[in-house]
């Protein structure tokens, strides 16, 4: 099992650093190149949501990302400590979009096998993104 923890602050300028560290972790993964590209985007979208919606313009704090790759799957946990959001209320968008927003969660759901929201935290949000390896599920 391989594991990497990355922490960024709620500043969109740090998204580039996050992607660099994620790519470094994924370089040793046996997932196909296309899938690695999708992982970077899915985690980037989740972190952008934390920065943009959970912390917003008035709050600041950390976004903690944990990537865990095992024999049968890869898991990304994204935790923030801002305002809670209701994932279930986010509807699937009609495609193609005619309005310039609303695709972030759609990409995450499309690219991953599972998207879980941990509702147990008193403050903030925790998303878990899971992709199984071929034949593992």
């Amino acid at each position, binding site marked *: 099992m391989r594991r990497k923890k990355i922490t960024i602050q709620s500043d969109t300028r740090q998204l580039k650093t996050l992607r660099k560290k994620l790519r470094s972790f994924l370089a040793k993964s046996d997932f196909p190149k296309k899938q690695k590209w999708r992982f970077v985007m899915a985690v980037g979208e989740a972190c*952008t949501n934390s920065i943009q919606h959970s912390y917003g313009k008035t709050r600041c704090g950390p976004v903690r990302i944990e990537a865990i790759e095992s024999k049968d799957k890869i898991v990304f946990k994204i935790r923030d400590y801002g305002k809670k959001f209701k994932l279930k209320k986010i509807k699937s968008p009609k*495609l193609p979009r005619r309005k*310039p927003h609303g*695709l972030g969660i759609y990409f995450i759901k499309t690219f991953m096998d599972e998207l879980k929201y941990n509702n147990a935290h008193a403050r903030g949000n925790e998303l878990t993104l899971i992709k199984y390896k071929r034949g593992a599920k």
Partner: protein
Amino acid sequence: MKVQIKSSAEADNVVLQGEVDFQTAADLRQELQKLTARRSPKILIDLKKVSYIDSSGLAAFVGVLQSTKSYGGKIAFFNLNEGVRDIFRISKLDSVFPLATNEKEALSLLV
């Protein structure tokens, strides 16, 4: 991310370089709005050197599409790498935007 605009008699060619995310999409939107503000009739966007794009980048493109449609302008993309093309396909924006393999083909799609 870098945005370079090369204007010719045929079209305004926008050459993007680097990663387009929530942070950099604002700059991209601003540059594209300069073209739509002067009612550019044909906008070609070269994505050859774009190594990453997220939903914020796509949103900037949807925004400029709406602007060009309002005055009868046209927009097309070319030189998409595999990852960027995947994002257009998954979001079904490949049915909205003309996507070409090279500049010449992109220009022909705007006739």
